[in-house]
């Protein structure tokens, strides 16, 4: 049996539902020959801001007893000018679809970065990161405030016709209102979710394990939370959902498809296992064969609840 792995979403047509999680795959070429692009539907870059950002003081990454990791990179990135000058050419366009993740401190910054990227051809779309736990902002609580998120999305919509996904934090008890707000403001998709805010302490030295004290908690412990958010959002919005959170194998990915996700971002897993995309795609295909599913996309939202 051959399983159709393609996923269609509006104007997009992805070879597979697998994407990379922003920030875990750099600007797309760092993994070099170690990664097999053919398993991917696309990649998402590290979040890019208007100005370069140095990021947070080290240490910036630690593990948790619970089998996850916490990072406090702090959105270190080269900034949009350097990006256009020196990184655009290294993007793996042609090998796979390329999505750019955008982050900003204000509505205007998001718009300005997207405007600059509109001149770059070959970009499949954008992901608006409105949910990074690692930076403190002035008045705007961009990750929590649905008005701010709607403002960012609708303003970005005025400058681009490209595909845009809005990436939300899992730190809402119920995601529906903010998900709906993002869609009403013109989002083509929602990414659920970014990391949880987490922290670990070294009791011997009485110090936090991260220089920034808290950071973004990802990997397997995040999965049940992201899954709940994907399912909650899928009950209320009709745009595709991009899942992100703790997937390490094909079964995890199938769970997200059933809960309503159309695309699946692999993040932290790439650090442990850069070959994960190929392995996971095979595991999903095996599942489909075992269950007589001919198209991966047939699984989307097929969770049976009463």
């Amino acid at each position, binding site marked *: 049996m051959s399983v159709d792995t393609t996923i269609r979403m509006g104007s997009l047509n992805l070879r597979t539902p697998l994407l990379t999680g922003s920030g*875990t795959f750099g600007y797309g070429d760092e*993994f070099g020959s170690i990664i097999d692009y053919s398993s991917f539907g696309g990649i998402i870059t*590290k979040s890019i801001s208007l100005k370069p950002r140095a*990021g947070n003081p080290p240490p910036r990454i630690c593990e948790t007893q619970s089998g996850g*990791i916490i990072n406090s990179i702090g959105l270190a990135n080269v900034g949009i000018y350097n990006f256009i000058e020196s990184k655009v050419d290294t993007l793996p366009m042609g090998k796979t679809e390329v999505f750019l993740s955008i982050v900003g401190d204000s509505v205007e910054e998001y718009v300005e970065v997207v405007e600059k990227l509109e001149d770059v051809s070959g970009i499949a779309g954008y992901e608006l990161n409105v949910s990074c736990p690692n930076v403190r902002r002035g008045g705007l609580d961009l990750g929590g405030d649905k008005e701010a998120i709607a403002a960012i999305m609708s303003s970005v919509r005025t400058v681009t016709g490209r595909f845009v996904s809005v990436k939300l934090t899992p730190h809402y008890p119920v995601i529906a209102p903010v998900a709906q707000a993002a869609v009403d403001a013109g989002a083509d998709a929602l990414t659920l979710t970014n990391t949880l805010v987490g922290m670990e302490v070294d009791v011997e030295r009485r110090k936090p394990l991260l*220089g920034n004290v808290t950071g973004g908690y990802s990997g397997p412990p995040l999965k049940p939370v992201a899954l709940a958010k994907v399912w909650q959002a899928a009950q209320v919005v009709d745009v595709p959902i991009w899942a992100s959170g703790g997937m390490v194998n094909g079964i995890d990915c199938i769970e997200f498809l059933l809960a309503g996700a159309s695309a699946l971002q692999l993040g932290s897993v790439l650090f*442990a296992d*850069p070959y994960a995309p190929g392995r996971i795609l095979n595991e999903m295909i095996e599942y489909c064969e075992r269950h007589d599913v001919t198209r991966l996309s047939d699984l989307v939202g097929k969770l049976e609840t009463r």
Partner: protein
Amino acid sequence: MEQINLPIAEKGVVDQIRKISDDTWDIKVFSPGIAKSSKAAQFVHVRVSEDFRPFLRRPLSVGPCSGDYLRLIFTVKGSGTRLLAQKSTGDVIDLIGPLGNPFKLPEDDEYPIIVGGGIGVVPLLLLDDQLEPDTPRDFLLGVRTESLLPVDEPEIKHRNIQIASDDGSIGFGGNVVQLLERKLSKLQSNRVVVYACGPGMMMYALKQVCIKHSIKAYISLEVPMGCGLGACQSCAVPRSDGDGYLLVCQDGPVFDATEVLIEPEVLR
């Protein structure tokens, strides 16, 4: 810049594993692709667990290589290295490497002093091998006490390593940076180039000494890593000029000591 080989993914096979001291192990791994192309201070990113517990790979310096074999020498610190120490002959280890930039070898008129602290000696063993055999050098190694020596007697003899121990149980009584200062006082220091790797406090002291004597020092740093490939920005160390950070996996692990701010707390 020197030509650096691209990292490859390789399933190494454990040829031999031996315990060097209470908590230090030496694994000889058949890994021809990496063994043949590694240079001193480059490292491999090692998958310690197939089931993601612990989650991350562990960076380990490539130790001495011979033909198709490389050596990994490591101290058991936590769960990852504990799992590695349980490997036995024939086991497969998932490696990515060689990663990072190697030590810049000494110019013809330079006199290399190699300074290791504890398990930090590993990349220096490969450096020792990669210097021309007839290049004169000093090779210093500091340990807290004799029983913690990360290399065995024959290796110490063979390489003519001079030991310093904090408690005086072996060799020079004092730390290895003090031993270095002694050496320096007997040498024409503008010809000296120091190659060092060790714990944060040692690197901190070493940098001060080298600045005081205006000596060039190449140091190899160890910080927690995510990807190991320059993609995630986890392995940042502050630039000494205050202008942001450098990445240990991509810009290092070797730095000119004056380039980076040494924060003992972060390096551990």
